[in-house]
């Protein structure tokens, strides 16, 4: 009985003095945090493709700069995140196409964007009408669809194409 009591009191004393060694944990967390901060994709441009899109991979040294963003996915073409034209299996509806391989609905949206840019530029000397356009397209997109988007953009003065890719090694 005396022995049991002594052992119990010793264990309780150990529990009271035990403290977690969290210094090493703090070190690990610091390293993880630094790594995450370094690899965190930050920049002036937010190019977040739609879920399920397969962006092609390439060695691209040029960073993305601010420009009008057009995304071509399986079911739609989006301009600045807003749906502009409906696609069916990466292809435009035949009724949406007009002479010169231009999409009517996409052309309407791009025209609106262009007019907005011109209006801003006319009121603010620091803003220039920009011919840049960033194309974020799924790698399965047929060239005819890409051509239609590029032609529709070129008609409205967007002639400096930037093709968004996932940076390779």
């Amino acid at each position: 009985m005396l022995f049991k009591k002594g052992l119990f009191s010793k264990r309780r004393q150990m529990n009271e003095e035990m403290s977690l060694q969290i210094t090493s944990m703090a070190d690990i967390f610091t390293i993880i945090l630094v790594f995450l901060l370094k690899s965190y994709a930050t920049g002036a441009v937010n190019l977040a493709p739609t879920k399920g899109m397969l962006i092609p991979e390439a060695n691209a040294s040029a960073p993305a700069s601010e420009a009008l963003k057009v995304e071509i996915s399986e079911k739609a073409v989006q301009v600045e995140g807003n749906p502009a034209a409906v696609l069916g299996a990466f292809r435009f509806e035949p009724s949406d196409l007009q002479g010169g391989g231009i999409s009517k609905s996409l052309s309407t949206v791009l025209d609106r964007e262009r007019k907005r840019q011109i209006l801003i530029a006319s009121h603010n000397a620091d803003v220039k009408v920009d011919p840049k356009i960033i194309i974020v397209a799924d790698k399965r997109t047929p060239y005819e669809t890409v051509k239609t988007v590029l032609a529709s953009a070129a008609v409205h003065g967007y002639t400096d194409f930037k093709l968004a890719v996932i940076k390779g090694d």
Partner: protein
Amino acid sequence: MSSVSSPGGGGGGGLDFELNLASIIDCFTVLITFMLASATFLSIGVLDAGIAAGGAEAASQQPPPVNITIELRKDMSVSVKVSGKENRSQTITAKNGGRDLESLVSQLGAVKSRWSSVNAAILQAENGVEYGELVKTMEAVRKNMPAVMLGGF
């Protein structure tokens, strides 16, 4: 826990305290969780591509001695056309079921060695060719021709 003692050590009334790291750990845990949830580990870059059609800017520049047009075909072959001071056309056939981009690079290298001032090529494709193929070819072409313009429209 980290503890700090006074330099003299041992003496009565020394500064012996422990840093409270628990709150820092809490903060780090929240930050790491947030960053892991929101981080996209894919870095997105851009490939520059102009338009093959001229415009006022292009018209003011000196035309190159030769124009190079590369066309991707659905049967995985690649056609290279050189026009201007040198006229020739060559088709690079498919290799191992894919496009023979190594041959394309060497072809363009040969043209570049003859016409060093040529820096641009026009890249176009047949309708059914996938965009991914176009980007791959563009990457290969850029090894010799830094300016790649998209054509065919």
